[in-house]
C-alpha cells in the first residue's frame, strides 16, 4: 500500500493513497476511521442479533425460552444494540465515505472524529451495561413514567452528542473539499444523499437532546415529573427521524453499489436529488404517525403531518425505488444484456453478494416495508394494527430487510476498498444475502401475520397463564409465532455468516494488491459514483413492469385494509 502525496494539495502533510479499485484518493485518517466504525458496528449487530434470536424463541410459545424479566430486559437491549448502535456506527462510516472519500478530499478534523467515536463507544457501552444490570428494562422507547437507571439516559446522551459531532464533520468536509477544489460542479449524488442523512440526523439528535436531558435529570430526582405526551411527541422526533436517516443512507448504498458494480448512474440526477430534497423537507414530519391514537393532539396536526407530508416523502421513496432498478436496467442494457424484458435482471451479477444484497434489500424494503408502512401511517387503518406485532413486523421489513441487508451488502465492497483484503470464505459470502434475506423476510411477514390476528407486541406470554382475565388467540396466531421463530433461526444463521465473513476477511483475508485489483476488479464502475451525471433514458420495459406490479400490490393491499376496517363496524 503506497502512500502518496497528491500534488497541488494545500495540506501537503496529509497522507493519501490512490485506491486501485476505485481510483479514489483515500485520506489515510478517514480510512482508519471508516474501518474502526464499521467493525464496531458489526460487533453490536452480532450481540444485538443474538438477543433478537432469544426473544423470538421466547415468543414462540412452544419453546418460550426466557423468563419474563429476561424477555423484557433483552428486548430493550436488542432494540438499543441493533437499531441504534449497529446502524449508527455504520452510518458514521458512510458519512466519512460519502464526504471525504467520494469527494477525493481529506476529512475535516479527524481528531474530533476520534473524540466522537470514543463518546459514542463509551455511551453505547454504558447504556448497554445499564440495561444488562436489570433496572432499565424500559424498552428502547423509554416512555415515562417507566424509569431507567440514570446512566442509561446518560449513555444515550453521550452517544447522541458523539453522533452529532460526526454530522458536523460531514458538513465541514464539504466545506474543505469545496475550498480545496477536490471536485468540480455539483457534489455527486451519493454525497448529496449523505448530506440529506446528516441533515435529518441533526434534527433527530436535537430532538433527542431536548427530551433525554430532562429525562435524565428526572431519573436523578432533580425534576419531579416528565409529561408523558410531551415526551412521546419529542422522543418520536428522534425515534422516527432516525429511521428516516436509515432509509436515506440505505438508498445511498443502493445507488453506490449499483454505481460501483455496474457503473449505473441515476436515471436523472436532478430527479433523484429532488427526491432527496423531499426527504429533507417532509420525512421528519411523519414522526406524527407514532402519535396517531394519542388523545390531546388534533386531527389537523395528525393529518397534516402524516397524510400530506408523509405522502410527499413516500413519493421521494417511490422515485428512488423506481430509479435504482431503472439505473440497473439501463446499465445492464448498456453492457449488452438486452434480451427480452427481463434479460438484464436474469443476467445480473447474482453471485456478487454486494449486488445480490442490494437488490434484495430494494425489493423486500419496497414490497414488505414500504406498503405496510403506508398502512400504519394512515390514521384510519392504523388502528387495526396499532401496538400489535404487525408493528415490529413492519419495521423489521424496513430496518432489517432494508437497511441492515443494504449495509451488509455495502460491507462486501468496503472490505476490499478500505481494508484492502479479499473476502474470506467467498462461497459463504455469496450465499449470505439470500440466507439472511429469507430469514429477515420471514420474521417480518410472520410478525405481521400474527399482528393482523391481534397478537400484541412486547408481550411475553399470549397464553395468559395465571392471568385473571384471559383471552384465546386463534391457533393460527400460535402457528405464526412458530414460523417467526423458525425464520429467526434462519436470519441468525445469515447473521453469523456475515460476521464470520467480515472478521475472517479483515483479519485473515488475502491482501489485495494493485495487480489483483486489475485482474479481479470489484468496482469497475467507480467513475459513475465520483461524478455527476445521468443515464438519461427511459427505455426500461423491465423496470416499468416491476413498478406496475408494485403499484397493483400496493393498491390491493391498501383496499383490503379499508375493507377490513369497514367490516369491523357492521352498519345496517
Amino acid at each position, binding site marked *: 500500500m503506497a502512500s502518496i502525496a497528491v500534488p497541488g494539495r494545500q495540506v501537503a502533510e496529509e497522507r493519501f493513497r490512490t485506491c486501485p479499485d476505485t481510483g479514489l484518493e483515500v485520506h489515510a485518517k478517514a480510512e482508519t476511521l471508516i474501518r474502526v466504525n464499521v467493525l464496531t458496528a458489526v460487533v453490536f449487530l452480532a450481540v444485538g442479533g443474538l438477543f433478537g434470536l432469544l426473544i423470538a424463541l421466547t415468543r414462540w410459545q412452544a419453546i418460550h425460552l426466557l423468563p419474563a424479566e429476561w424477555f423484557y430486559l433483552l428486548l430493550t437491549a436488542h432494540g438499543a444494540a441493533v437499531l441504534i448502535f449497529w446502524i449508527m456506527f455504520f452510518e458514521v462510516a458512510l458519512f466519512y465515505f460519502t464526504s471525504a472519500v467520494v469527494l477525493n478530499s481529506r476529512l475535516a478534523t479527524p481528531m474530533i472524529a476520534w473524540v466522537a467515536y470514543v463518546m459514542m463507544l463509551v455511551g453505547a457501552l454504558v447504556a448497554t451495561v445499564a440495561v444488562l444490570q436489570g433496572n432499565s428494562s424500559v424498552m428502547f422507547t423509554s416512555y415515562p413514567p417507566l424509569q431507567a437507571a440514570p446512566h442509561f439516559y446518560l449513555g444515550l446522551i453521550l452517544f447522541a452528542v458523539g453522533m452529532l459531532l460526526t454530522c458536523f464533520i460531514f458538513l465541514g468536509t464539504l466545506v474543505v473539499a469545496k475550498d480545496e477544489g477536490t471536485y*468540480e460542479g455539483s457534489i455527486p449524488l451519493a454525497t448529496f444523499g449523505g*448530506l440529506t442523512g446528516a441533515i435529518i440526523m441533526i434534527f433527530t439528535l436535537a430532538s433527542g437532546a431536548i427530551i433525554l436531558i430532562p429525562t435524565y435529570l428526572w431519573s436523578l430526582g432533580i425534576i419531579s415529573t416528565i409529561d408523558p405526551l*410531551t415526551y412521546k411527541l419529542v422522543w418520536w*422526533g428522534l425515534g422516527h*427521524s432516525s429511521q428516516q436517516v436509515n432509509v436515506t443512507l440505505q438508498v445511498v448504498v443502493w445507488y453506490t453499489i449499483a454505481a460501483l458494480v455496474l457503473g449505473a448512474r441515476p436515471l436523472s440526477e*436532478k430527479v433523484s436529488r429532488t427526491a432527496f430534497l423531499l426527504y*429533507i*423537507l417532509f420525512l421528519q414530519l411523519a414522526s*406524527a404517525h407514532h402519535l396517531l391514537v394519542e388523545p390531546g393532539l388534533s386531527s389537523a396536526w395528525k393529518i397534516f403531518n402524516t397524510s400530506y407530508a408523509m405522502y410527499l416523502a413516500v413519493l421521494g421513496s417511490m422515485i428512488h425505488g423506481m430509479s435504482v432498478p431503472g439505473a440497473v436496467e439501463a446499465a445492464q442494457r448498456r453492457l449488452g444484456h438486452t434480451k427480452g424484458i427481463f434479460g438484464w435482471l436474469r443476467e445480473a451479477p447474482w453471485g456478487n453478494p454486494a449486488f445480490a444484497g442490494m437488490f434484495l434489500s430494494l425489493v423486500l424494503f419496497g414490497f414488505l416495508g414500504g406498503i405496510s408502512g403506508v398502512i400504519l401511517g394512515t390514521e384510519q387503518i392504523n388502528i387495526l394494527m396499532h401496538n400489535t406485532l404487525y408493528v415490529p413486523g413492519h419495521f423489521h421489513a424496513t430496518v432489517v430487510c432494508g437497511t441492515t441487508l443494504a449495509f451488509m451488502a455495502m460491507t462486501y465492497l468496503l472490505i476490499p476498498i478500505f481494508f484492502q483484503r479479499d473476502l474470506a470464505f467467498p462461497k459463504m459470502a455469496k450465499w449470505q444475502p439470500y440466507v439472511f434475506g429469507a430469514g429477515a423476510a420471514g420474521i417480518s411477514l410472520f410478525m405481521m401475520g400474527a399482528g393482523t390476528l391481534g397478537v400484541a407486541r412486547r408481550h411475553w406470554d399470549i397464553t395468559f397463564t395465571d392471568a385473571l382475565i384471559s383471552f384465546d388467540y386463534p391457533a393460527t396466531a400460535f402457528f405464526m409465532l412458530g414460523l417467526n421463530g423458525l425464520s429467526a433461526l434462519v436470519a441468525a444463521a445469515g447473521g453469523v455468516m456475515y460476521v464470520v465473513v467480515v472478521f475472517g476477511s479483515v483479519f485473515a483475508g488475502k491482501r489485495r494488491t494493485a495487480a489483483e485489483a486489475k485482474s479481479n476488479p470489484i468496482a469497475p464502475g467507480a467513475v459513475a459514483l465520483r461524478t455527476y*451525471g445521468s443515464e438519461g433514458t427511459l427505455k426500461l420495459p423491465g423496470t416499468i413492469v416491476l413498478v406496475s406490479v408494485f403499484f397493483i400490490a400496493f393498491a390491493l393491499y391498501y383496499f383490503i385494509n379499508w375493507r377490513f376496517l369497514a367490516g369491523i363496524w357492521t352498519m345496517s
Partner: protein
Amino acid sequence: MARQETDKDVGARPHVMQRLLDNPFLLVFLGVTMPTVLYLIWGIMEITQIPLAPS
C-alpha cells in the same frame, strides 16, 4: 455512454432549484426548521392547550 451533465452547461446563473440543491447550509436550515415548526412547536402548542383536570 452515459450523458454527462453539470450545472456549468446550464448557463452563468443556474436555475433556482439547482442553486438550492447546491447550497448545503440552506438545506440544513430548511431540514431543521420545517419539522421544528410543523411537528414539534405546533404539537407542543396543542399539548399546552389541553385543560388541566380539576384537582
